[in-house]
């Protein structure tokens, strides 16, 4: 049973690429900057939500560790700019470092069953926040405290549209990756593990290894998206980076759309970024509102938007077609 | 003996999710008798006991206990009414002592009223249990655990005690000993419904029996009738 259905139907592939190309023209066509920002954030959230969905939705690993990955990659990229490393290498290098970090963590966290895993992963961003608060690998001590870094050098002068296009790539790339993974042997193995870990192991599924693969993939892509985000921001500092707000946004994006569905993160990210703009004025209340939404959706409509869409026949037909 | 059966089940259907486990089953248990349910592992016997006990609920049909409809009641209400189950595998509380397990059996309001007298009764029926009352349940042998489990069931002050797979994993001598005690319990007025795979033994100890196959009653009658039934003899005794 070699990688079944790894080929994507041409029409479906177009379905991914055409909107992406259209969106790519956004910054040049004279649309308001807010639209570009919206699509930018949407793409970043989309990538991160897909990766979290892979972990939590498809592998049963509710990871609260995502800020660690995006933060490490971000810091790697920014510190790289201080060391004269080209931003492109910094970006990819950061993603790789995030992946390696996940690999190292794997031994610690995968001994743990689901619940232990979650708390274990909760602690990691916290620890990293303290580490980066205390540790200044490059540059002298900042006057007046704080431990952030500005993006330096050529990276700081990048045209925003380049960064925008990179975000689009990562966003659509994550959708394609999800499509491939879910239909591959890895995806099957994960489904088996999620259903019943012991049975899966008894059937010869190398549970530990699959979990590690998923964890590393998730960390790497999340790191990549994070690096692009901070490239855009031009600045990184610990308390906003290793912050549970990221986790909340990613969770919400996945859950609102529909956890454990392929299209879920897409719809969820649309809504979450919209919420972000809506709640910008109420930043003091944003976590409260998001938390309530998360709880309500989880209780009333666990399958999120996709759950509601699937009740309609036209949607079912559409998705059945794209399955091929 | 009253003419009205103690437990009357009529035409129940029970589902596990979408999977149907019991199909239009009817049976009755008469007061003061030892009634047996015989069948293979997957026949639905444990599901049936759970349904009587209120852990599961039938989708259709009725269950009457002492004239009262109980099919919609929750388990803790049914135990209080006087039905108790000694589950398959004993399921003693492993970190509790024998005595603590017994006392846990006397939890419902009805049971608490008779706690002391029931404890004495259990000790009298199972002297070994009395000897080991301070021991941790998980350190006991299989046979001793079964005795404690039955004793725990009696502490609930039941009218009907249901025992699931009593002989499982036990040596025949122990099984005989336990059945002797069950007859004593029966003599004291508690009705016994027990579930077994061991057909020969069961038909010697029960008054009446039902054969359950794939969620339905396939045969029923007094133990003598069933012992002499040609189909039974062929299927289970190979004669």
């Amino acid at each position: 049973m070699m990688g079944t259905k790894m080929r994507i139907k041409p029409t479906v592939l177009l379905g991914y690429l055409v909107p992406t190309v259209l969106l790519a023209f956004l910054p040049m066509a004279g649309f308001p900057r807010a639209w570009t920002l919206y699509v930018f954030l949407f793409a970043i959230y989309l990538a991160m939500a897909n990766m979290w969905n892979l972990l939590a939705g498809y592998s049963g690993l509710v990871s609260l560790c995502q800020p660690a990955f995006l933060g490490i990659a971000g810091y790697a990229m920014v510190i790289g700019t201080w060391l004269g490393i080209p931003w492109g290498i910094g970006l990819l290098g950061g993603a790789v470092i995030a992946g390696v970090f996940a690999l190292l963590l794997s031994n610690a966290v995968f001994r743990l069953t689901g619940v232990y895993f979650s708390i274990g992963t909760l602690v990691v961003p916290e620890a990293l926040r303290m580490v980066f608060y205390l540790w200044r690998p490059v540059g002298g001590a900042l006057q007046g405290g704080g431990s952030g870094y500005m993006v330096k050098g050529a990276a700081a002068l990048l045209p925003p549209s380049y960064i925008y296009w990179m975000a689009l790539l990562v966003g659509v790339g994550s959708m394609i990756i999800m499509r491939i993974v879910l239909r591959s042997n890895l995806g099957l193995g994960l489904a088996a593990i999620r259903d019943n870990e012991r049975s899966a192991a008894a059937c010869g599924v190398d549970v530990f290894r699959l979990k590690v693969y998923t964890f590393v993939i998730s960390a790497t892509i999340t790191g990549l998206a994070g690096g692009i985000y901070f490239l855009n921001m031009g600045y990184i500092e610990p308390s906003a980076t290793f912050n549970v707000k990221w986790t909340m946004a990613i969770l919400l994006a996945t859950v609102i759309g529909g956890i454990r569905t392929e299209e879920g993160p897409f719809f969820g990210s649309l809504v979450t970024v919209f919420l972000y703009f809506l709640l910008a004025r109420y930043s003091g209340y944003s976590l409260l509102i998001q938390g309530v939404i998360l709880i309500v959706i989880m209780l009333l409509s666990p399958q999120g938007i996709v759950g509601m869409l699937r009740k309609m026949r036209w949607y079912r037909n559409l998705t059945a077609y794209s399955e091929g | 003996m009253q003419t009205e059966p103690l437990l009357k089940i009529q035409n129940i259907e029970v589902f596990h999710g979408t999977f149907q486990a019991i199909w239009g089953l009817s049976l009755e248990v008469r007061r003061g008798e030892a009634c047996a349910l015989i069948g293979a592992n997957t026949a639905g016997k444990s599901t049936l006991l759970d349904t009587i006990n209120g852990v599961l609920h039938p989708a259709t049909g009725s269950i009457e206990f002492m004239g009262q409809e109980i099919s919609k009641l929750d388990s803790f209400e049914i135990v209080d009414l006087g039905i108790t189950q000694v589950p398959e595998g004993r399921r003693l509380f492993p970190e509790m002592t024998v005595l603590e397990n017994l006392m846990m059996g006397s939890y419902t309001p009805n049971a608490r009223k008779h706690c002391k007298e029931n404890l004495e009764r259990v000790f009298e029926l199972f002297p070994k249990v009395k000897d080991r009352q301070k021991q941790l349940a998980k350190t006991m042998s299989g046979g001793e655990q079964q005795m404690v489990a039955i004793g725990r069931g009696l502490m609930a002050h039941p009218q009907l005690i249901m025992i699931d797979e009593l002989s499982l994993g036990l040596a025949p001598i122990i099984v005989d000993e336990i059945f002797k005690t069950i007859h004593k319990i029966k003599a004291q007025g508690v009705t016994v419904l027990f579930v077994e795979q061991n057909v020969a033994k069961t038909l010697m100890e029960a008054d009446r029996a039902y054969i359950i196959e794939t969620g339905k009653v396939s045969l029923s009658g007094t133990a003598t009738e069933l012992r002499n039934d040609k189909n039974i003899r062929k299927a289970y005794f190979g004669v």
Partner: protein
Amino acid sequence: MGHGDLVTPILMGVMLGGLYALTALGLSMVFGVMRVINLAHGDLVVLASYGSYAVLTILGIDPVVGLIITIPIMFAIGVLIQKYLMSKAVTIGAEAPLIIAFGLSLVIQNTNQIMWTPLSRGINTSYSQASFYLFHRQLPMTYLMDLIVGIVVMLALREFLKRTYMGRAIDATAQDPRASRLMGVNTKRIYYYAFGIAMVSAAIAGTFLGMTFPFTPTSGTTFLTIAFGTVIIGGLGSMMGTFLGGIILGLVQTLSAYFLGANAQMLVLYIVIIAILAFRPQGLFGR
């Protein structure tokens, strides 16, 4: 940070252990009975800290006496959470309780922040600054109270679980929910009470934590981590283990503050917890 006197941090670490064990009790109980790790536990403890703070600053009542008010409120909150959130969550799927607890955690954090600002607070009573002497060292009175309260509550809980019908039902349900139901235990209601009792211990823990350390709306993560670490080290299901786990973490904290400075103590704590997770997740005394 004198390098001569090791005795003081050791004594303080041990006393702190009592408080940490107390903080872990609620988490341990909810997991033992309902098999759910309540991610919002730390924030609920902080909620109780703010509650006691309010009792002191708004009502002018001593926070320990004020437990008369905070305990019933926290009990009710616990029952409501179990009844309307957690019991529904477990029917939805394995991830649902975690996600919902996460949402709840942030709702509480944000609510605390709205009501009390991100400013750091502390519960300061007339005796907060008092000290006592042991082995010729001056030690904070609050730490002694922490130890005593920790021991008292744990003993009380143990007696409750052994001697009362409700307590035994909770213990039985934790060991075997199905068998419990067959004994006539209303397991649904037991879950409510278990969560409620867990919140009672959280109320006490929060009050004394607030008297020992300053806290902010985001302290919940720290408290959760400490509670979790305590439970992990001690192994689930062992009260003695939880107590010892608390002492070990308390010692780790005070000793690393002593050797490495105040900034490092939380980081070292976190690293130790992650290390234990990596190498011995069943803890030292688990069953």
